[in-house]
């Protein structure tokens, strides 16, 4: 549902942004009036949760996908105005750093997902919940219903924004300038996906999460306002990161969401490249592209990494925003004591077995029905289980390698971090293939001396690099972007030629990504996590990032094991293969359950840390003295980097 820049005319994007401006203004005022800085952790937690669940793609018909958004969940927890702020933060982070949704189209995306969805969903929730208790199942069901209606409303807004483009913006020959499909196509395509899979998934996730939070005693917005301040939210948001361990589930569904295609794919579907779309695609700023498309092309590990990064950036963004928006409150928390009667518990009556439980088991599953169920092709849950297990094992193996003997392993973590980051910076400034090849050789040599499986590492990096930057590198190789002597003609009609300067540019781009990826992998594989985070803290990286990353990584295995246990428990009670719709529902419930469980775990971990003297700042062991070999390595890498840069400047 994230609209890219190129498919909307600039005037539409600006109009949507202008429409959102008063909403953002009103939201900031209402949030200041109703929330205090004590609610910051919950807002950050909710935004990060929305960010993560948006990575859980679900397959729908036509080879496209959809995903839950979580906006109504946030509205139910914190109110719709806070949801505007939280969703806007999550969408902005996605657009700026993950190339998901356009920068110029941010206003349009926010209008649909940060305004229409939470408000429509919240209204439906309030109507359906009535005066029910804050802990009742009816309230959770109402939230699920609101989520369903909310995401359908948001999808309708997106369908209209896209569908009006051909009618409003045409070139001289009457062909669409931007998005080529009209309302007759967009409305059924987008609405159908969200009326079925998307809406159901949103409802299940919201219902499950609200139910879990209710059982944990978390008050919903407008139900027990006085007790909200007594909840120690600042301890809980760390636990959310653990949910990211499930992010690879989103990779099981292939394809993009309807309308989120790249310009070339959209042109292929439409049969022509709209000129305005092509111009916008070339000219529009695509953000920082820190982790484009969540690194989904690189596999589950990088996808999880993107999820952690998103959590950290979204959390930090919301925290910074909250400082400006929310009123500061420093009073001691108060706990209201409801006038409940003294409850007494009594032993349950002695169990009497029902007759059916005493009867002998009769196999009531007919051969025909079993055969029918087994014939449904689905390995969704099984593949998920396998991916989680492999991911956990890979994580554990990486730590074992880091603690083994080797050249890089013996170096001081601070020196290693500084030197490898310096080489990455050098890599960004190199423009020639020989210069970059020098760094490739240096990285390969260091990896070999460190007893790393450099062949496997290089294979992964070199397989991933073209995929990562292919969308940019391929156009760069053509005569459109880099005119010059023709290397070969790729296509005659329309004429597309690959030039030698273009090939050089594309190769340099891919080499840069490959070198940077290899250096980053060397750093992670050869350094124990605790040392790496210690080095980050020593080098004054923001403590919020390092602490969140550290705690999240430590608990991935615990939450992943919990997820694996859930899948195994389900499998033990399943006959034959489950149907796709059942598997989807189960995954949604698992997401909700693990969200609640990770929060509870975070609470326990925090208590254990406080009990041993933690006061908001992790003190690590004083770093050992930097040895001569560390200094020598740092000097060598800096010299090599400077030498390569100097050599390249001479050659040019």
């Amino acid at each position, binding site marked *: 549902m994230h609209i890219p820049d190129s498919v909307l005319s600039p005037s539409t994007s600006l109009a949507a942004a202008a429409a959102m401006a008063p909403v953002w203004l009103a939201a900031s005022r209402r949030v200041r009036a109703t929330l205090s800085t004590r609610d910051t952790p919950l807002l950050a937690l909710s935004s990060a949760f929305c960010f993560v669940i948006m990575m859980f793609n679900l397959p729908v018909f036509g080879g496209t996908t959809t995903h839950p958004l979580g906006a109504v969940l946030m509205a139910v927890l914190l109110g719709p105005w806070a949801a505007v702020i939280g969703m806007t933060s999550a969408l902005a982070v996605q657009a700026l750093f993950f190339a998901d949704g356009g920068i110029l189209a941010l206003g349009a995306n926010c209008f649909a997902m940060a305004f229409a969805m939470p408000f429509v969903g919240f209204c439906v929730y309030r109507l359906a919940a009535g005066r029910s208790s804050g802990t009742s199942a009816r309230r959770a069901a109402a939230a699920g219903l609101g989520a369903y209606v909310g995401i359908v409303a948001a999808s309708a807004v997106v369908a209209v924004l896209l569908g009006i483009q051909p009618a409003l913006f045409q070139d001289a020959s009457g062909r669409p300038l931007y998005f080529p499909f009209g309302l007759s196509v967009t409305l059924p395509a987008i609405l159908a996906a969200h009326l079925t899979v998307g809406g159901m998934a949103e409802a299940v996730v919201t219902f499950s999460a609200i139910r879990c939070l209710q059982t944990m*005693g978390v008050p919903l917005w407008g139900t027990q306002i006085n007790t909200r301040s007594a909840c120690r939210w600042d301890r809980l948001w760390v636990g959310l990161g653990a949910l990211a361990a499930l992010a690879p589930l989103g990779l099981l569904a292939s394809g993009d969401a309807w309308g989120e295609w790249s310009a070339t794919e959209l042109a292929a579907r439409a049969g022509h490249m709209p000129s305005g779309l092509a111009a916008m695609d070339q000219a529009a700023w695509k953000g920082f592209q820190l982790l484009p498309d969540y690194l989904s092309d690189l596999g589950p590990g990088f996808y999880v990494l993107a999820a952690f990064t998103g959590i950290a950036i979204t959390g930090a963004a919301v925290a910074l925003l909250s400082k400006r928006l929310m009123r500061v409150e420093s009073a*001691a928390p108060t706990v209201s004591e409801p006038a409940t009667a003294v409850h007494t*518990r009594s032993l349950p009556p002695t169990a009497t077995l029902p007759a059916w439980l005493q009867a002998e088991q009769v196999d009531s599953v007919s051969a025909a029905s079993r055969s029918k169920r087994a014939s449904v092709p689905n390995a969704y849950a099984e593949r998920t289980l396998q991916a989680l297990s492999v991911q956990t094992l890979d994580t554990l193996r990486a730590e074992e390698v880091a603690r083994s003997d080797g050249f890089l392993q013996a170096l001081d973590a601070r020196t290693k971090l500084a030197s490898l980051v310096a080489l990455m910076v050098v890599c960004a400034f190199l423009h020639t293939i020989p210069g970059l090849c020098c760094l490739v050789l240096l990285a390969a040599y260091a990896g070999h001396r460190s007893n790393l499986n450099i062949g496997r590492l290089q294979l992964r990096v070199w397989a991933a690099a073209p995929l990562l930057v292919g969308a940019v590198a391929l156009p760069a190789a053509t005569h459109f972007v880099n005119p010059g002597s023709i290397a070969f003609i790729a296509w005659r009609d329309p004429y597309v030629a690959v030039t030698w300067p273009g090939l050089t540019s594309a190769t340099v781009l891919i080499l840069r990504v490959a070198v940077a990826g290899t250096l980053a992998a060397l750093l992670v594989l050869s350094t124990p996590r605790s040392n790496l985070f210690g080095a980050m803290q020593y080098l004054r990286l923001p403590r919020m990032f390092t602490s969140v990353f550290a705690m999240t990584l430590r608990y991935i295995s*615990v939450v992943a094991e919990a997820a694996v246990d859930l899948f195994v428990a389900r499998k033990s009670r399943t006959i034959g293969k489950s149907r796709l719709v059942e598997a989807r529902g189960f995954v949604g419930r698992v997401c909700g359950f693990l969200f609640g469980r990770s929060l509870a775990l975070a609470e*326990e971990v925090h208590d*254990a840390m406080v009990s041993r003297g933690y006061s908001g700042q992790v003190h690590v062991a004083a770093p050992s003295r930097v040895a001569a070999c560390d200094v020598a390595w740092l000097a060598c890498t800096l010299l090599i980097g400077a030498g390569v840069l100097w050599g390249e400047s001479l050659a040019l």
Partner: protein
Amino acid sequence: MLSSSPTIHRPCAEEILDLALQDVSFAYPDGTKVLRNVDLGIARGESIALLGANGSGKSTLLKLLDGLVVPTSGQMHAFGGIISNHELRDERLAAAFRRRIGFVFQNSDAQLFSSTVREEIAFGPLQLALPTHEIDVRIAEIAAMLAITNLLDRPPYRLSGGEKRKVAIASVLVSNPTVVLLDEPTSGLDPRSRQWLIETLVALSNAGKTIIVATHDLEAAPRMAKRAIVLAEDGSIAADASVDAALADHGLLARVNLIHDHVHWHGSVCHSHPHHHGPDHEHTHQP
């Protein structure tokens, strides 16, 4: 008999009180009342068993004593001073408090969050700003005492349940606390590990540490502690007496749901006796 009127054990005035609760009640934010009007004084060097059924508030009482939660009403005193949110926000006072009290959690997985056992044991002393060389010495000595030297460089999540419990205890004892709180320490342990744990607690008690153990293991309780605080199911104190006296009062134990009547037949004779999963069974015969 305690069942008619619970006796309240109060330390003598001249005894040094480590911890004291005055009319303390506690409710969670959702309104669930867990502890009610708890009056308690814990003297230096005492060994106490907190007995109670599931959900009676044992773990919450330990959290209160560790300053992880503060009373909804009433006052808590620790080492001569009042403990409240205000004091715990003062880093100096909080560090002084944390240095003198250690808490072994029921769920070892939640307590063990570092990459290696060595880092795990070092976490507490590092937060309390102990010198590095002293931390190294303490880690080596506590590991030798608990026979976990061979585990120091292993990740905690690879350990067995008994090993995790040992590491959790080591990570608390390394800070040399005056008071050691343990939540269900014997649950999930095999007989040998259970025996080892009991002997360790006895040794700590003999060394002058104050030991407070929350448990419903009635067999292990008299071996781990001398004084028993029995919590009723509504979170109030049902009895505060010696462990032997508390365990001898079957009416009290049945009322707080720590034992139950067990009925079985031997031919035509029906046997009914209070029952728990310890050695102390008293048989009564019915025709």
